[in-house]
């Protein structure tokens, strides 16, 4: 279904379709649009932070507002921009790559999105009532003692959206285990599918730690418990452990899918198979495994003692080995190829030097004694922005340019793509490279102002200029996206000479994806058919009826229920009337579950005859 066709049905029907959809491709659109919106919000917050720091002792915003700004920037970018955009890409691409008609649980897929969405809205409502101001890491006791309801919004927002993310992760795991097309063995899966699989495993094991931490924080703040209150026998360090047991794997939840994206893009545009496929898969698994063993390197200065510090330092350094393997395998994929450089490829190529710098500084901060100097300074800010922006954001932008035709049936404009790339790329390095030095020169992070005459003026000024370049790049991309929707060139099924299954079906794909499930004969199945067969996938089954799930509004209503209950939880400390919201919201949510459980919904079938009528 093209966008034009849905518009003909009228705006109301269009909105209703998206509210109730269980189609993984439409849920992907929802993730991308909502995640994109939060990305713009987080970017605006970042710009305000940089404007405040353009000159010493600036008073562009107050200290309180600044702390809200940094907290919201971090929380928004990690949980409500990077994660959902990646989940959106996984939704859009992964089922196509394994030759599936949808994810395993379409209803839960929709529920996962709406929980994330309402969690994000919940967090941002706090801008009107007082936003959280304890940093995105919300260290106790600063978070437990922060006045007002800001931190409560943080807790409830993350709790609601976290549940959605967990569902998304489980859904992808089940999908990849059970719904691969005939012949699509594990070791024939494209790397993006592999990294989706591994990242989903990380979600499964890492998010419960966050959930537990948030519950403890919630009880401390709202129901008078004292898990983190030292005076009453609690311990504030426990929060840091819980947070980082989640928080470090979270970094890999973000970066591994980006690795997968590059591993799909390089072979396509170098016209060469991925170098060392098996090593790439096992490097991914190893990174994920080690990712759970290193959380305390965020806590070298907590005072854990030399034994713990040494062990976590060495474990952290070990991660460099599989990461290095990946970098060299990508380079060798390009080696001997026939490289086309377009927007998608520019972002991918720029990733290599940028991320290598981030990885190198990663080793530097892993050296515990050196970290005593880096810790909580702008050096660390520079390090993780090189990883998250240079890795994840570059990956997302590469993926958007690469899969845009498949997802939306339109091609992004190349000139604007390149303009956005160069301004963002230059701005990124301008902003963050200098921050390595600022940190070592004595600028701690989360500083609302820096003092005059401390040698920090020039660096901060350059950094802010860079932020404006990045802003310009983002705006150009945004314009490009809108332009492609309105006037963009129609995309063919396979615009890039693709190698994987998603390029074997029309752009955008029909809502049932594959008329007949394809037979997979090896890694890069489409490439095999192009070079050894007739260029088309061989069907693995005769044409027959396709079973499809019905749309449902229940996920939206259920998430709305939790959203309303969230306000109840927050305000029951002030007003008894808030219990109406709490119980009312929970009633809506639990009632929706009841309806879903009791009411049979068997879906519907697209008949063979209907499929035959559809042109290829």
């Amino acid at each position: 279904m093209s966008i034009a066709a849905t518009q003909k049905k009228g705006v109301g029907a269009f909105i209703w379709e998206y509210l109730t959809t269980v189609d993984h491709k439409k849920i992907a659109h929802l993730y991308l649009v909502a995640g994109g919106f939060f990305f713009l919000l987080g970017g605006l917050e970042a710009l305000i932070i940089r404007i405040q720091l353009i000159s010493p002792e600036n008073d562009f915003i107050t200290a309180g507002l600044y702390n809200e700004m940094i907290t919201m920037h971090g929380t928004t970018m990690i949980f409500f921009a990077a994660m959902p955009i990646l989940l959106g890409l996984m939704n859009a691409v992964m089922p196509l790559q394994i030759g599936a008609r949808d994810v395993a649980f379409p209803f839960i897929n929709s529920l996962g999105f709406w929980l994330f969405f309402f969690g994000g809205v919940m967090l941002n409502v706090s801008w009107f009532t007082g936003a959280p101001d304890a940093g995105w890491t919300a260290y106790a006791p600063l978070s437990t003692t922060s006045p007002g309801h800001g931190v409560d919004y943080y807790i409830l927002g993350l709790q609601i959206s976290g549940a959605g993310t967990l569902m998304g992760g489980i859904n992808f795991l089940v999908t990849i285990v059970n719904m691969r097309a005939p012949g699509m063995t594990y070791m024939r899966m494209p790397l993006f599918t592999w990294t989706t699989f591994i990242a989903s495993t990380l979600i499964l094991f890492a998010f419960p730690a966050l959930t537990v931490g948030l519950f403890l924080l919630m009880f401390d703040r709202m129901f008078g418990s004292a898990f983190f209150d030292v005076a009453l026998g609690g311990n504030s360090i426990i929060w840091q452990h819980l947070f980082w047991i989640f928080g470090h794997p979270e970094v890999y939840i973000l970066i591994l899918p980006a690795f997968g994206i590059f591993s799909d893009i390089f072979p396509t545009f170098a016209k060469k198979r991925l170098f060392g496929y098996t090593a790439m898969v096992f490097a991914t698994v190893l990174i994920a495994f080690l990712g759970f063993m290193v959380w305390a390197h965020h806590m070298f200065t907590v005072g854990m003692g030399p034994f713990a510090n040494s062990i976590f330092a060495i474990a952290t350094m070990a991660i460099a080995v599989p990461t290095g393997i990946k970098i060299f395998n990508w380079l060798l994929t390009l080696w001997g190829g026939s490289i086309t450089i377009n927007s998608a490829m520019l972002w991918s190529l720029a990733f290599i030097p940028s991320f290598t710098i981030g990885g190198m500084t990663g080793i530097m901060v892993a050296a515990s004694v050196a970290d005593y100097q880096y810790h909580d300074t702008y050096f660390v800010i520079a390090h993780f922005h090189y990883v998250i922006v240079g890795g994840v954001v570059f990956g997302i932008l590469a993926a958007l340019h690469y899969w845009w035709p498949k997802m939306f049936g339109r091609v992004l404009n190349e000139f604007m793509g390149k303009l956005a790339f160069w301004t963002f790329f230059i701005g990124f390095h301008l902003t963050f490279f200098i921050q390595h030095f600022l940190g070592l020169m004595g600028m701690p992070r989360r500083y609302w102002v820096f003092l005059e005459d401390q040698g920090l003026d020039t660096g901060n000024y350059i950094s802010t200029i860079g932020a404006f370049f990045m802003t310009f790049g983002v705006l150009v991309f945004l314009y490009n996206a809108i332009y492609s929707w309105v006037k963009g060139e129609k995309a063919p099924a396979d615009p890039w000479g693709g190698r994987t299954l998603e390029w074997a079906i029309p752009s955008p794909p029909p809502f049932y994806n594959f008329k007949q499930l394809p037979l997979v004969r090896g890694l890069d199945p489409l490439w095999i058919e192009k070079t050894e067969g007739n260029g088309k996938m061989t069907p693995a089954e005769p044409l027959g009826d396709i079973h499809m799930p019905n749309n449902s509004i229940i996920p939206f209503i259920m998430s709305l229920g939790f959203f309303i209950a969230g306000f109840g939880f927050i305000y029951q400390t002030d007003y008894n009337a808030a219990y109406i919201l709490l119980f009312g919201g929970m009633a809506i949510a639990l009632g929706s579950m009841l309806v879903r459980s009791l009411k049979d919904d068997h879906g519907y079938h697209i008949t063979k005859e209907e499929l035959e009528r559809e042109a290829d």
Partner: protein
Amino acid sequence: MKGWMGKIKALSLLGFLALILSGCGKENLTALVPKGYGAEVSMDLIILTTVVMLVVFAVVMAIFIFVLIRFRKKKGQEDFIPKQVEGNHTLETVWTVIPILLLIIIAIPTVLATFDLADETEASDSINIDVTGYQFWWHFDYQGEDFQTSQDIYIPVGEKVYFNMLSSDVIHYFWVPSLSGKLDVNPENENTFYIEAYEEGVYWGKCAEFCGPSHSLMDFKVIVVSKEEYEQWVADMKNVDPDEEPESAVAVEGKELFQENNCMGCHAIGSSPVQTGPNLTNFGNRETLAGVEDLDKDTLVKWLLDPEEIKPGNKMTDNYPALNKEDAEKIAEYLLQLKHTDITSESAEN
């Protein structure tokens, strides 16, 4: 071979150029010019890891640039299909083993340094200072000496001085970049580490853990003086008479106002268990006012009238009787003449 070496040289040169252009920061603040044992150990490790990593980066970039130039699609060869290489075991082994070796080169000194800096065996024979972090100031209690200070710490040069740190509220970080790396000041589990300064001087200390609105204004100073000057300072600080009458008449009025308004309910002068607010002993010799402002009468009056304007979120605002400007000036006069010793930052700079 020559081409490779050239590239490596060019790149490391570029790195150094960037360093020189950005400068090394302000002396006695920046970690890049270490002047104490901890900072030096960290800096050695920083240099070692940087060099190893620059070598890796140079190799990656050399291959990257070569690939981009050599293997771009050529005109007239649009239909060229490259050989579909699966992999190469020898190469893959090489880039697994070499990084492991490089990491061992980094890991061994890291572990040695970690244990070295955690050594507390000499603590009982050394000067020990108990540090308490408050939103947004620092309290220092010299163990066994029976006096306390706030914001400024005096220590002797060339000696290990141990800091035992605990927070009274949220987590703070004790960081004097030029002298040593940082350590948490937690509400539980006292943390201990030492500073050994190589040179006399006034060093900037900063709170590096996000602790609230005035986190960025929680600076302190470490004033490193000679052993004799330090001993003189300790002797002077132990002999403070809190009731000493000021010389000027205005300051005498200020002292009366200080008592009338019950300022000493929170602020001790001389040795006292009172530490709700900073101890004001030797206030007139402080390096800064409130950690970041110039210590002068106008600023102090401004502080006394509205501390919130200087330090947002501080605990003094609204917790003392409102003052008029005239009274504030008198109190300022009194506080500024509280100079209980001749050992000051000037002694450190000579």
